[in-house]
């Protein structure tokens, strides 16, 4: 296997380069600095209120009180974000912001965007919340102009920040061990180790293992009417076994610069359950995943006016799909390899106290190989993205604007390659404070696009190399209001946004070649209008008691406006599939001296499973309630924590995707010790 050798060499080079750079920077004289200063914490509520684009955030405290094990559990609390969840811990989960589609959602992990050029969408089921410090969702673009160009390229960005080392006074290391268990065979041990070597260097190691047999009961209805047959069944072939290990190295040569490097490895083996087919329970398909990456960010404040930031990343992913139940005479195995080489360099220039400009440049090379697919193109994509951005901010006004240029070139080992693309995408956002009140009016406009994925372009006969990028236009108007009301009501925040999004040249699958081979075409237009409302606040009714609450509501009207002719005419003006008009969430937690009690709720209105909004395609709405109890205590000299959760309290038998049932009532518990 030639390519394996090549990867090895390139990884080697990258490592060499990184260590040299580290040594160089470490040689510099530097100011003494405690590592806990590394994280520049900003009072988030201020940023959230002032942002020109809607921005929502969950920090580790909120995440802990949330009955959330996986990333997807937490994301259900963001307004305007919908998750496709195929059920169970191993079921695929993808996110879409404001009906724009999964491929328009950017996800970054510690400042560097994740990518999957094969499908264009990232399965978030592999992210746990174990080591997550905060989640932040920005519609459009965040106020931070000093970022990578790729972070500016997506229609919306979900930023995952992992925990950073922090030490109690006088200590130089910290260890944490945790063990979790729950219904359906859930076992989850995890550990974390943080160590400060000297004033300049600290590192952390973080790992977890998760297993679940996933055999949960569900009810299968053989008809929609009241008297129709129902069977009580157990979900089969739904096991998952995953492991993740992550190492972080922090180097702070001086007060003005920070070097953060990460090595990440993830592996999973899971059953891939079918839809719950009537009268046929046989399941025998599996999915194996391996993904590793190494990334490094370096940032430096050169002087009062200038700052630079750079990042490098290499990622290697492998996926194997195996269907042992297939009646094909040849073994039904598909294997995919993906590699990414990525570099980013950004410059920030503060020309006035309130005015700054950034120039962000990214270069990425993505390559894919496949086994089990005849005449696979083995494509390579070269993308160069540059963004010029400006920001002005004073007490009454924040404005930012950017223009992103994207230059995409592809080549293939065999067959025709996709055409090259040059695109310019503007963004502008404005937030003003018309009164003395902490109340802001905001608005933004953004154009973005998503490239056709390698599957869209090259997957056997499905692929179509003539595809154009899919365009998204977003317009948003909203207001935010935050206030300290009284001593016992210290914090209240509310935001309401109305938006209009348009998707053009939507990439859809249609049987253009023949019935069995649907291929991708740029046909489709969707007009989306919606409202997102978010609120959160805190109450302090008595000493040692605190109530935190939050809620979100979304209204979405996402109408298919492709064509009034022929088959498209039958769905013209209909709500697109799997998009609820109404959805919402709520959370309330009560901190007491006896522990923290919290209640979580997610609500989703009815949806249609296909484009035609008729009774046959209707899928009922659902509500999911959960309770959690969290208690911190001292055991010997260990900081200990106990958590107990009851999920889907009402044992509602619902599905996000039809015939992929979600688990009913279940429990989870975990115990952790830190030193």
């Amino acid at each position, binding site marked *: 296997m030639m390519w394996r050798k090549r990867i090895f060499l390139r990884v080697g080079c990258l490592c060499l380069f990184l260590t040299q750079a580290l040594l160089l920077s470490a040689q510099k004289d530097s100011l003494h600095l405690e590592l806990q200063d590394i994280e520049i914490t900003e009072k988030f509520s201020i940023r959230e209120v002032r942002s020109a684009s809607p921005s929502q955030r969950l920090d580790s405290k909120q995440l802990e009180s949330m009955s959330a094990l996986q990333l997807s559990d937490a994301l259900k609390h963001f307004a305007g974000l919908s998750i496709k969840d195929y059920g169970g811990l191993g079921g695929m989960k993808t996110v879409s912001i404001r009906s724009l589609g999964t491929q328009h959602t950017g996800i970054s992990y510690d400042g560097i965007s994740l990518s999957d050029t094969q499908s264009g969408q990232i399965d978030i089921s592999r992210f746990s919340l174990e080591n997550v410090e905060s989640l932040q969702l920005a519609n459009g673009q965040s106020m931070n102009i000093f970022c990578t160009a790729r972070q500016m390229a997506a229609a919306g960005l979900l930023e995952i920040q992992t925990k950073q080392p922090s030490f109690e006074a006088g200590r130089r290391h910290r260890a944490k061990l945790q063990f979790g268990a729950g219904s359906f065979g859930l076992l989850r041990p995890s550990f974390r180790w943080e160590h400060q070597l000297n004033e300049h260097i600290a590192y952390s190691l973080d790992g977890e293992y998760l297993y679940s047999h996933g055999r949960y009961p569900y009810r299968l209805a*053989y*008809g929609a*009417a009241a*008297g*129709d*047959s129902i069977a009580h069944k157990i979900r089969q072939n739904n096991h998952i076994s995953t492991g993740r290990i992550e190492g972080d190295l922090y180097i702070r040569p001086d007060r003005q610069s920070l070097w953060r490097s990460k090595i990440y490895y993830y592996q999973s083996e899971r059953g891939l359950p*079918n*839809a*719950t*087919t*009537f*009268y*046929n329970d*046989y399941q*025998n398909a599996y999915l194996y995943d391996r993904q590793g990456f190494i990334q490094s960010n370096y940032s430096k404040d050169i002087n009062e006016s200038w700052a630079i930031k750079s990042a490098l990343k290499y990622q290697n992913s492998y996926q194997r799909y195996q269907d042992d*139940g*297939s*009646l*094909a*005479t*040849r073994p039904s195995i598909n294997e995919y390899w993906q590699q990414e080489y990525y570099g980013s360099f950004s410059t920030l220039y503060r020309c006035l106290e309130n005015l700054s400009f950034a120039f962000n440049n990214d270069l990425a090379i993505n390559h894919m190989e496949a086994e089990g697919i*005849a005449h696979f193109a083995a494509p390579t994509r070269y993308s160069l993205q540059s963004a010029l951005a400006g920001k002005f901010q004073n007490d009454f006004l924040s404005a930012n604007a950017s223009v992103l240029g994207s230059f995409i070139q592809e080549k293939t080992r065999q067959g025709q390659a996709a055409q090259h693309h040059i695109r310019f995408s503007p963004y502008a956002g404005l937030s003003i404070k018309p*009164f003395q009140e902490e*109340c802001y*009016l905001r608005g933004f406009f953004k154009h973005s696009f998503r490239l056709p994925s390698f599957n869209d372009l090259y997957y056997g*006969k499905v692929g179509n190399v003539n595809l154009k990028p899919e365009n998204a236009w977003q317009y948003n*108007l909203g*207001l935010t*209001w935050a206030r300290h009301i009284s001593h016992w009501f210290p914090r209240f925040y509310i935001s*309401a946004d*109305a938006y209009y999004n348009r998707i053009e040249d939507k990439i859809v699958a*249609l*049987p*253009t*070649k*023949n*019935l*069995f*081979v649907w291929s991708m075409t740029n046909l489709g237009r969707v007009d989306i*209008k*919606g*409202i997102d409302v978010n609120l959160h606040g805190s109450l302090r009714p008595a000493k040692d008691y605190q109530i935190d609450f939050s809620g979100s509501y979304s*209204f979405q*009207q996402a109408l298919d406006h492709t064509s009034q002719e*022929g*088959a*498209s005419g*039958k*769905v013209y*003006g*209909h709500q697109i599939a799997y998009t609820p*008009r109404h959805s919402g969430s709520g959370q309330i937690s009560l901190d007491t001296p006896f522990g923290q009690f919290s209640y979580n709720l997610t609500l989703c209105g009815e949806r249609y*499973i*296909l*484009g*035609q*909004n*008729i009774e*046959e395609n209707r899928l009922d709405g659902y509500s999911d309630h959960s309770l959690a109890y969290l208690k911190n205590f001292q055991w010997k000299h260990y900081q200990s924590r106990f958590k107990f959760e009851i999920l889907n309290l009402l044992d509602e038998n619902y599905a996000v995707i039809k*015939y992929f049932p979600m688990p009913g009532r279940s429990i989870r518990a975990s115990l952790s010790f830190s030193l």
Partner: protein
Amino acid sequence: MKNLQKYIYLIVCLFCLTACPTPPEPEDELPQTQDRFFVLCEGLFNLNNGTLAYWNQDRWISKKYFLQQNQRGLGDTPNDIQVYGNKLYMLVNVSSQIEVVDLHSGLSIKQIPLFLEDGRARQPRHIAFHQDKAYITCFDGSVARLDTAQLIIDGKVQVGRHPEGIAVAHGKLYVANSGGLDNPHYDNTVSVIDIASFREIKKIQVADNPYKVYSDAQGDIYVNSRGDYNEMDYCLQKIDSQSDELIKTFNELQVLNFTIQGNIAYLYDFDFGSKSSEIFVMDTQSDQVVRKQFITDGTIIETPYGLSVNPKNGDVFICEAYNYLTQGDVLCFSSDGKLKYRLSDVGLNPNAVIVW
């Protein structure tokens, strides 16, 4: 505070104005007919939404007749439907069941599962009848024999890979071995099975990926092949059922799907790219195309998905599937190619009409 409320109110109002749900479209006027038939709709894979619709003269008894009568759905992807005696036989491919239904009541008499010993579904595909036995092609590479009186499977014979169509002539079964699940390594044979001994006696080589098999009134066998699903690959071939030899290849005809009633074959070609279809008529005695355009009144079919002939009056039913994601229609044409009536929104992917 006042201002804030005003803004929220304004925004909410603005959106409510544009957010009204689309009103349901009015039902089409239903035609007056003399026909009584079932329509089998495949639904979509993984959605368990195969349906059986039942039309009687001037109204739908139900578009979900099976569900209504049996309080349970038909299952995932029913592929074939036939009437034999007083029973209706349906093959549900993904659910891997034979559903035997009483023709008069619509009640299920028996649901017969088809699974291999290791638990894998055999996936029944097409059915043919001969002397109180039903013969069912299954994607596991076999033909199952069902006793229609006792409703039990009493035999199995191995054929080629992923058999599709099946026809009876001169005491023999002709089975098209498609190899479709091994795409692009298709099978290219027709198995000949002696019914008396229930053994495969011959494999006749035909074009790649054979699909449907029918016999005409003389007992000649016609088989169409779909190659690698490129339009130019479709073809039609003829087998002599006395000698079991391939005797003719119709090179000039691109046949995606067809059916034979007596000595008349209705065939169609469909170009998925341009969405143009040609439905033509062939006389199987002369093997000549007698009409290049079956439809004479300009009716447009977007995506033909099934073709059936009413044996009572020679009317031709054509199933319209549109883009496979929206409810399809059934169109009834007189034998001279004029539209008699259209029944809209029958179900998802209607593939066969059975008159009784």
